[in-house]
């Protein structure tokens, strides 16, 4: 409840800021060794605060009925950490002191850990929590290095003013790479994404919504903040971000397409969306480097719009997955089916968000991607060697695979008939949880229909980077088609409505019959003969087998019919985690087990260790 109040206050404050000039600075001089505590709001923070307040407010409202305090004993803990988590994220966005930033960052990371291990007796959640903790702390290690390096350059832990830092080429490269490791890991950029699917899948759904919609963005914020510090950036950095972004987008969605677990699927698609955001940032930095203003503007607009948009539609999807989970009792899509009949509102909202995440008009996902396409296409006609133009076919491929993934998810969960008795007998209804989802989905539609609203909001951030005003109406001969887009989207909706009315009127006068689905005259159909989500995406998963090679365990067949005990199992494998990191870490664990011989609990030998160490040190000092 407190989060709700706080976020509405935050909203009010944000609107005040957006109305006036952005530049509130608050300095607290205290006698701490790391210097004064400096808090500031600039357009970059405001960009991230906007979805943060909106989504956390909705999540708080949602959790009242999703995790009711009266029924769940652990709800006090959950509520506490949701509040801490939100507050820590706000702090991360506001502080301008390296040490305080690290504190807020750790607070956020640890709160997320406690949130995702809410179901602490679940082994899977424990494992996901450990992997998350290892990953986030490896990232924090890089951040320690980053802020120490910055301290060495500026002599203070306060972050330097934008566009003011210039150092030697090597030091700049080291700073950028440590930032990329530290923040990129948090954002889920490949190849540092391995903690993400498990963590998102095992957290309570509203926490997953916050982690995916908001926490990943903190990593993006970190990179944007670091980039902002420098006077000029090396050329390779933009290209590096672009390549990593493209790689994440393509492989993230390939991974998502093969999943059976609904929340894992959503988590993998977060990797894809983070990839798209980084494609935009990379494009903008390349544009900044080469002086191509259109690339710069389109890249940043695309990335910033997608940051907000992804926060909105991914939250709807995760909150929707919570409702689905509540009513079906399983995360496995292949056991669900036919939920649209029992929860029509959830089904409709999930559909809206699915369309948005595939980047289809008339929803908000399309607007962000349109900017990236425009940048790529402009590069295609204007630059002598249009490498960036390849972003367009790449995005098209990623969009196509996103469509496979979300048609599969939507179709398997909500359409058809229930595939298992588990999904059928549970109590299922929309409930009060759909309220917050509705609000977010309406935002998606509103931004899709009137992209100018969000573009106006994002423009100050782009100006913050470029230092000059942005005129979208004429960018070197390119006109950003915001008004035509609104007109066409409205036309599309109007056409749909007119056709629907005509169709209804037409149906009235004609005979209608209801019957079972046509099954080639097969008389005993059962829900089990329906196409499952796994088979739906199988063709594509086989084509991209290098990244999402799932394990298929087939039964050994003897005789004409398989035995009753014969089972087939399908398990999507994550290449890096399952094939590389887990074996590596278990090998390291094995190697270190020999070290345990030193730890035997015999006191006199320990005293001997102390003596030997002292002796060696004395000799070394001489």
């Amino acid at each position, binding site marked *: 409840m407190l989060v709700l109040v706080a976020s509405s206050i935050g909203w009010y404050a944000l609107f005040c800021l957006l109305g006036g000039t952005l530049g509130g600075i608050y300095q607290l001089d205290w006698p701490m060794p790391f210097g004064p505590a400096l808090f500031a709001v600039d357009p970059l923070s405001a960009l991230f605060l906007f979805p943060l307040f909106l989504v956390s407010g909705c999540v708080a409202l949602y959790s009242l009925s999703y995790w009711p305090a009266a029924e769940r004993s652990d709800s006090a803990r959950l509520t506490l950490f949701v509040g801490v988590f939100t507050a820590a994220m706000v702090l991360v966005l506001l502080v301008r002191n390296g040490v305080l930033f690290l504190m807020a960052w750790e607070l956020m990371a640890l709160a997320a850990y406690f949130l995702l291990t809410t179901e602490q007796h679940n082994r899977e959640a424990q494992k996901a929590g450990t992997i998350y903790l290892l990953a986030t702390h490896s990232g924090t290690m890089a951040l320690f290095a980053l802020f120490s390096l910055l301290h060495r350059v500026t002599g203070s832990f306060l972050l330097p003013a934008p566009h003011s830092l210039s150092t030697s080429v090597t030091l700049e490269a080291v700073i950028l790479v440590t930032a990329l490791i530290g923040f990129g890991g948090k954002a889920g950029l490949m190849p540092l994404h391995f903690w993400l699917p498990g963590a998102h899948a095992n957290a309570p759904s509203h926490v997953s919504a916050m982690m995916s919609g908001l926490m990943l963005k903190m990593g993006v914020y970190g990179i944007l903040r670091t980039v902002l510090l420098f006077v000029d950036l090396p050329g390779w950095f933009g290209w590096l971000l672009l390549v990593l972004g493209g790689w994440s987008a393509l492989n993230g969605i390939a991974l998502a397409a093969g999943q059976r677990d609904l929340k894992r699927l959503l988590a993998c698609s977060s990797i894809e969306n983070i990839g798209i955001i980084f494609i935009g940032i990379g494009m903008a930095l390349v544009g900044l480097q080469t002086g191509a203003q259109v690339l710069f503007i389109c890249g940043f607009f695309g990335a910033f719009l997608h940051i907000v948009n992804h926060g909105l539609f991914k939250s709807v999807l995760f909150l929707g997955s919570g409702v689905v989970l509540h009513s079906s009792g399983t995360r496995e899509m292949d056991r669900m*089916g*036919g939920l*649209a009949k029992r929860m029509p509102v959830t089904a409709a909202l999930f*559909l809206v968000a699915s*369309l948005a995440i*595939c*980047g289809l*008009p008339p929803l908000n996902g*399309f607007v962000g*991607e*349109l900017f990236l*396409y425009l940048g*790529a*296409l*402009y590069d*295609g*006609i204007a630059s002598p060697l249009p490498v960036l*133009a390849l972003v*367009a*076919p*790449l995005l*098209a*491929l990623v*969009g*196509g*695979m996103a*469509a*496979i993934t*979300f*048609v599969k998810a939507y*179709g398997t969960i*909500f*359409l*058809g008939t229930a595939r298992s008795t588990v999904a059928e007998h549970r109590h299922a209804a929309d409930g009060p949880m759909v309220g917050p989802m509705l609000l977010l989905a309406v935002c998606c539609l509103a931004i899709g229909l009137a992209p100018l609203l969000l573009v106006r909001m994002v423009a100050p951030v782009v100006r913050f980077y470029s230092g000059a005003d942005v005129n979208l109406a004429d960018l070197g001969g*390119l006109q950003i*088609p915001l008004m035509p887009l609104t007109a*066409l989207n409205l*036309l599309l909706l109007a*056409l*749909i409505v007119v*056709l629907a009315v005509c*169709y209804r009127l037409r*149906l009235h006068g*004609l*005979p*209608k*019959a*209801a*019957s*079972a*689905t*046509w099954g080639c005259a097969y008389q005993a159909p059962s829900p089990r*003969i*329906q*196409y499952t989500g796994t*088979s*739906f995406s199988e*063709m*594509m998963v086989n*084509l991209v087998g290098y990244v999402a090679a799932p394990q298929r365990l087939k039964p050994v067949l003897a005789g004409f019919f398989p035995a009753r005990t014969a089972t087939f199992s399908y398990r999507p494998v994550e290449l890096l985690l399952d094939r590389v990191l887990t074996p590596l870490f278990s090998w390291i664990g094995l190697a270190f087990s020999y070290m345990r011989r030193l730890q035997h609990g015999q006191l006199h030998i320990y005293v001997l260790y102390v003596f030997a160490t002292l002796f060696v040190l004395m000799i070394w000092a001489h």
Partner: protein
Amino acid sequence: MIDIIIHCTVALLLPPLLLGVITKTKAAFAGRIGAPLLQSYYDIFKLFRKGSVFSTTTTWVFRAGPLVTLAATVTAALLVPLGRHNAPLSFDGDMVLFAYLFGLGRFFTTAAALDTGSSFEGMGAAREVTFSCLAEPTLFIALITLARMSGSLRLSTILTYPSPGLWLATGASMLLLVAALFIILLAENCRIPFDDPTTHLELTMIHEVMVLDHSGPAFGVILYSAALKLLVLGAVFVNVALPVSTGDSLEDWGLFVVAMLALAVGIGVVESVMARLRLLRIPQLLVGATILSAFGMLLVLR
């Protein structure tokens, strides 16, 4: 103004005729007389007067599928130039919206197929999304190459720019693009060698099997949308492959209609002389088309 009216009239009325021409050509190849040229119009008209059967499994998504697809295709038809005339609506980057409108239609068609709970339709939907996902990059590479030649990001300029002179100057590149676009045209419209639109009982079918459970007016809408899609993508192809202009607006319209009918005959010939590809070969052909268009792009950069 007159051009806009003609554009809408041609776009709305011509499509079923193309289906008729294709059927007639195939009949001629098989030595039959075949159905009348206007048979598709009769079919659609008849379907609009027929009753419907709805599966008890379905929800509103099943009913919305054909309608959203038609609305998206009609909107896309307003963006593409027919013949040598600018489209009624055009803006920078309209090709992105053009491609994504088909994506919207596809999302709803496949969702409607899954709504029936039939495994046939699930299979069809899975194939449809997979193959179109592979076809999409080709379309974009081809459009970027053409955009680079014309120096514009508007479909109207890009597609009316090719001329006999351009063909003479960059013949190799144009040839590769035309080949890639033809493959995409056949794949997106579910024609042989990708799909066989005349049957739906084989387990290898794509589009026809997705719409098995639709009946009555909804099926009429599907038939019409498919024909309209053929016209729209066919117009993209014809604009690139046959860049002839007479200079007179009305004569150009006539020329466009003749070219579209010729394209329909061409598709009919391809369908008559080829067998459908094995399902596993289809991705290879689609990736092949992507590589063709990428070659076309490289040749332009040279």
